[in-house]
């Protein structure tokens, strides 16, 4: 792609129009030490020295150590074909193309992605994907506010704390109210006060791993004239009822479990799928199937009048790209695994998570239980959970995502298993817990 930068003349005219003397003046509000900080960088290296340095760094990677960390991002099986196909050079771009129709292959892959997400969620219209699960939750709230013309968002505390933080950031400058519903015995009760709500947002499984009674919550939202936003783990949909089946208007979530490596926390992708009634309010790009002048099947970006390049300031969202390559990887992965493979992964995850909870309980640890769970569960511990996680990592096991005090569980961590969790990994976890001095009898009950 060719970029034509602004000429000096362009810049001068733009500055004149807004009454600024220089480009630097536009950044006058930013403290100078932040604007142009002194970077503490090592001396440049030649290629040989750099390769040695990078290899030494790579050798420190302990990505193969047993992992029980979750909270939305987990290690799952990735068949070799997924990485191989997704890394074809024709596909390797972070973006939906800006001249989309010349890139029929990318558009077709995106169309397949949308079809997969629609089938998984049981809702008809998926966009081309979003940045991540958290911003997808925030965009769902904005969509609900547009569609209902209301400005009150009711969100379960079971929604990932980071998603709620992003939601607050997105809504910060709007005249909107966010109401958080406390959990009752790890699950979201039907909120008493849904009057005037644009949306009720509930995550399933919630941040504590617990499954929610989504249909009752959806009914309550609809009775109050609110939309029901279902924040889902896409892999769980291989075995759970879909958002479409429980009556959700919008399904959003973090796509990583469908086939994106952990990648030190990102990039992954978010997804958003909506009912037909909401299609004009959908943020982001949307690929449609059509016929060319000769009647051949082809793909185009469709309903673009929602988007920034046409609607400018009145666009439905300021999102104008996505994490295309991550979404494409998941598309290839789901196609490779098929419905049967996905179901096996989801069932293996449930089986291993339950076996792990039983094993930890059998050893005397305090697993917090209240009902059905999918891949993870809370466990009470005897010390600051952040310190425990650091200690466990030094002992060779990644485990113990700290649960914030808002859940009222005291010192507690989230423990996660997937279909890849082996008995030897569980042995390693128990050994590491003992090695760092985390013993069941020391857990303070509360």
């Amino acid at each position, binding site marked *: 792609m060719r970029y034509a930068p602004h000429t000096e003349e362009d810049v001068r005219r733009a500055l004149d129009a807004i009454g600024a003397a220089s480009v630097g003046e536009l950044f006058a509000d930013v403290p100078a030490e932040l604007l142009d900080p002194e970077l503490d960088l090592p001396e440049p290296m030649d290629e040989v020295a750099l390769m040695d340095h990078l290899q030494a760094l790579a050798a420190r990677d302990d990505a193969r150590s047993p992992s029980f960390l979750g909270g939305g991002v987990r290690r799952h099986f990735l068949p070799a074909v997924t990485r191989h196909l997704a890394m074809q050079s024709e596909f390797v771009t972070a973006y939906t193309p800006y001249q989309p129709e010349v890139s029929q292959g990318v558009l077709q892959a995106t169309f397949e992605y949308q079809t997969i997400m629609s089938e998984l969620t049981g809702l008809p219209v998926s966009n081309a994907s979003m940045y991540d699960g958290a911003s997808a939750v925030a965009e769902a709230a904005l969509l609900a506010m547009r569609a209902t*013309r209301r400005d009150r968002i009711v969100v379960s505390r079971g929604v990932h704390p980071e998603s709620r933080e992003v939601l607050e950031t997105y809504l910060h400058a709007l005249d909107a109210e966010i109401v958080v519903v406390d959990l009752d015995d790890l699950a979201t009760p039907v909120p008493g006060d849904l009057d005037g709500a644009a949306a009720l947002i509930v995550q399933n499984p919630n941040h504590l791993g617990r499954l929610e009674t989504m249909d009752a919550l959806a009914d309550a939202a609809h009775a109050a004239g609110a939309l029901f936003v279902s924040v889902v783990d896409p892999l769980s949909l291989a075995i759970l009822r879909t958002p479409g089946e429980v009556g959700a208007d919008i399904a959003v979530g973090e796509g990583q479990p469908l086939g994106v490596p952990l990648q030190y926390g990102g990039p992954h992708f978010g997804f958003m799928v909506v009912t037909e009634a909401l299609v004009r309010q959908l943020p982001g790009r949307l690929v449609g199937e059509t016929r060319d002048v000769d009647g051949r099947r082809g793909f185009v970006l469709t309903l673009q*009048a929602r988007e920034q390049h046409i609607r400018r300031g009145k666009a439905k969202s300021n999102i104008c790209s996505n994490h295309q390559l991550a979404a494409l990887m998941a598309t290839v992965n789901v196609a490779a695994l098929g419905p049967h493979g996905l179901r096996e992964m989801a069932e293996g995850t449930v089986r291993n998570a339950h076996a792990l909870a039983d094993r930890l309980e059998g050893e005397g640890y305090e697993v917090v239980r209240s009902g059905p769970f999918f891949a993870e569960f809370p466990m009470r511990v005897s010390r600051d959970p952040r310190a425990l996680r650091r200690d466990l990592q030094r002992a060779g096991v990644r485990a113990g995502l700290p649960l914030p005090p808002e859940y009222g569980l005291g010192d507690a961590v989230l423990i996660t298993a997937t279909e890849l969790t082996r008995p030897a990994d569980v042995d390693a976890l128990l050994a590491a817990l003992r090695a760092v001095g985390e013993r069941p009898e020391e857990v303070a009950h509360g």
Partner: protein
Amino acid sequence: MDIPDTLRYARSHEWVSQPEDGVVTVGISAFAQDQLGDVVFVELPAVGDEVAAGDAVAVVESVKTASDIYAPLTGTITAVNDALENAPERINEAPYEDGWLFRLQVDDPAAREGLLDADAYRAVCEEEA
């Protein structure tokens, strides 16, 4: 170009019918629908919305672009043309009849006299054509 003498017009190309019990009907002119091209979607206000003259209250989306429709007068929305949801092409086919957008109970019926008459609006169209 069909610009009926019985209607009044806004510079932003909305037409306003003669009031009946203080209620006017609003749509977009034949000139506007021609400039937009095939209309594929219409976003209408809600009945009961209180609008001020100049507020963006609806959106008409064509294959080329999406355009805001402005309230030509201040008042309250009393009806919207729901039929456009499934048949937005009525705006192209009959902008002054089946293609109407919404009805407005105007606060000050005399304010309609401040809008353009057919001759003045014809001049605006010639300027922009």
